[in-house]
């Protein structure tokens, strides 16, 4: 018998999922955008390319705005860990809090150096300015590592000993941070961040190319993020494959839900689509033996099915499975998009005039975001009913405070406004820049309010602010 679910648990889970699902997009931008800005900046300096410098400058404005909004939504998450899950923090804060402390360090550094980098456009020498951006990119990666290590700990809790009264009596910080799931979750999320940011940014310029603007500025704006993303995509297949096989070993219930495996045994089929109704797979296409083959390179690989998991310890399998399919499917399409671009290059065709390629590229940003969110649902919903795997149930961790339904409604409204505000602000920037480029006679970066601050002529290193 599944225990009754209190209303506040549903509201708390919905609020956590919603705010995290929102923040994670901004977090991806915060992690990967600095790298892309620095690449454009470095190209601009090395090749004395004003278009690349202008891109770097404009992207750094986008970076500053999305970072500011991400800082706010991240602060909300810090509050929510306690406001929604006081028992999780009250019992395990001594272990679970450690990676967050490390994350705070990286976040702080990122905030400081983003301000310095933005400032540096006017006031620092080109070299010093470029260098001031490095800590931004590095702390973005460090922050991802820490925060994903915390999530990995929820999947593979380690580094603590429980006393007889259930309190944590000893903590081994390094074992907390480097738990079994950290090694595969961190690279998986990091690559996802580069894919999401790269494809999102590239899709903006793909639209520009489709509209017939094909100067060097727009081409570079497409190529820099696109290359980063299509290099990350196949690497992600490898990392994701390792992650999935580790989940099979570490969290059999999650894996059974991902692959809709109902009965333990060998020769498990790969189910594409379909849902679970009363323990039976309904709909979808089943490819014989493939799940076993992928999991252990042999059709005889035995995979644990949901029948081996007590009912009150099973995750909601259909959601996990469909999300898994969505992530893998979209990820595969994104790899194919990269191969398509290689094919075009091999046949010496100009991608900028291949309209079907550009249309696909214009959709790649949304596809990458959906794939990333789906992957996040797999890891989070697939862990249910546990908040700390096999240690603490989500239902036992939730606040007893009344009013979570109200805060959930408020948060949905607030974040909708925040999202719209962000899109309107970024849209306004884009229009303003387009107007400036038009006023400059279609040649971006040679005139106007934000003409590049230091350029090819300025090789002596002095800032021409």
């Amino acid at each position: 018998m599944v225990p009754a679910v209190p209303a506040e648990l549903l509201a708390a889970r919905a609020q956590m999922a919603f705010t995290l699902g929102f923040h994670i997009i901004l977090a991806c931008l915060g992690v990967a955008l600095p790298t892309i800005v620095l690449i454009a900046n470095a190209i601009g300096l090395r090749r004395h390319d004003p278009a690349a410098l202008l891109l770097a400058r404009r992207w750094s404005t986008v970076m500053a705005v999305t970072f500011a909004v991400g800082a706010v939504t991240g602060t909300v998450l810090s509050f929510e860990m306690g406001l929604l899950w006081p028992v999780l923090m009250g019992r395990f804060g001594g272990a679970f809090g450690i990676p967050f402390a490390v994350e705070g360090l990286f976040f702080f550094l990122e905030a400081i150096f983003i301000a310095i980098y933005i400032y540096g456009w006017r006031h620092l020498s080109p070299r010093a300015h470029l260098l001031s951006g490095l800590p931004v990119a590095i702390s973005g990666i460090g922050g991802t590592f820490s925060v994903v290590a915390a999530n990995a700990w929820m999947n593979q809790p380690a580094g603590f000993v429980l006393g007889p009264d259930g309190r944590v009596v000893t903590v081994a910080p390094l074992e907390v941070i480097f738990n079994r799931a950290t090694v595969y979750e961190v690279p998986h999320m990091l690559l996802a961040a580069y894919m999401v940011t790269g494809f999102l940014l590239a899709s903006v310029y793909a639209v520009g190319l489709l509209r017939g603007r094909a100067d060097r500025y727009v081409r570079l704006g497409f190529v820099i993020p696109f290359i980063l993303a299509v290099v990350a995509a196949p690497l992600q297949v490898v990392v994701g494959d390792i992650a999935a096989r580790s989940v099979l070993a570490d969290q059999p219930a999650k894996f059974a839900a991902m692959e809709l495996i109902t009965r333990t045994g060998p020769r498990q089929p790969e189910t594409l689509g379909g849902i679970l109704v009363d323990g039976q797979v309904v709909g979808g296409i089943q490819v014989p033996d493939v799940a076993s083959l992928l999991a252990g390179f042999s059709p005889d690989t035995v995979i644990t099915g949901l029948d081996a998991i007590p009912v009150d310890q099973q995750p909601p399998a259909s959601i996990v499975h469909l999300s898994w399919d969505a992530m893998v499917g979209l990820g595969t399409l994104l790899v194919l998009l990269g191969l398509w671009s290689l094919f075009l290059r091999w046949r010496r065709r100009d991608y900028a005039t291949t309209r079907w390629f550009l249309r696909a590229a214009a959709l790649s940003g949304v596809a990458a975001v959906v794939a990333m969110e789906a992957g996040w649902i797999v890891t989070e919903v697939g862990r249910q009913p546990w908040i700390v795997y096999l240690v603490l149930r989500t239902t036992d961790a939730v606040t007893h405070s009344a009013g979570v339904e109200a805060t959930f409604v408020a948060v949905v409204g607030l974040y909708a406004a925040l999202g719209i505000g962000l899109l309107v602000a970024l849209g306004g920037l884009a229009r303003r820049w387009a107007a400036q480029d038009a006023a400059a006679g279609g040649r971006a970066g040679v005139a106007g309010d934000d003409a590049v601050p230091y350029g090819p002529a300025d090789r002596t290193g002095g800032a021409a602010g």
Partner: protein
Amino acid sequence: MSALQATAIVLWLGLTTYAVFGGADFGAGIWDLAAGGSERGLRPRALIADAIGPVWEANHTWLIFDLVILQTAFPPAFAAIMSTLFVPLCLAALGIVLRGAAFAFRPLATGYAGRRAAGAIFAASSFVTPFFLGAAGGAIASGRVPVGNAVGDPWSSWLNPTSVLIGALAVATCAYLAAVFLVFDARRQDPDLVAYFLRRATLAAVVAGALAVAGIVVLRVDAPSLADELTRRGWPLVLASGLLGTAALLLLRRNAPRGTRSLAVGAVVAVVWGWGLAQYPDILPGELSLADAAAPAGSLDALLIVFVLAALLIAPSLALLYLLDQRSRLSGHGLGSDVATNVTTAGLPSEGGNSKT
């Protein structure tokens, strides 16, 4: 000194830093709110935006720092505070979201109406957020947060004379601190505004002083144990806070600005540590001691290591940021105006600080 004491000191250092930097930041927003119509308020608002533009994210990172230390080092206290004080802390979080988002969007807003709406949200949330945080602090200090999952009263824990008074005092203190800083900024950038912010610093100081005096009576009646501890152990610091605050104001009024900012900061530091001394060695007064709330030694050691790393890495970075900010503002280009000019076209009126150049 034990790891426990060291961690408690780090927690209180973080709280102090947030009270000073976050407080000045909130206070600047309060003066933005009180700057009047858009015509009249243009110049003070420009000065305010320029003063906090580059550093507001760093200022509020201290809050995250505090939350992380509390949850890692003293988990049961964190759980008790976050669950019993669900309402004021949700409202504070709401204020932080609105404030941060509005401040980020304001220089980007193309239309006058949009910029005004963003400005109003920014200013109003600057006013209410320190109140809720102060009220939550008052709830903790007056022993109204019991151990457990939402065991305390969700409303009377923070809607009581002590909490409301401390919330109001927090608002007044933020306003005072910001006004003192802005007098200093005005002296260099827009001398006409010196008298303007001096009047406001005086007003805030008078309000804060009146609230502090009222607090003597209120605490006696409403939170006698807190009043006892304050008079027994915390009094030298509380007294020092009043003296430092008054001294800063008198010096400013006599046009002797040197050291006034340090004196004003000292006033805030003294009152935060007075509170800490009064409730030591408890983390939830009368409910939970630091020792009983403490996480295992491994957690505290890890936190202290992170703290040392933070001091080694962040302190110089932050110093660099403030140094560059000061230097560029001397030359007429604040970081705030950099961000603003980066995103606004010439000719568009910007509240982000272009107006002075």
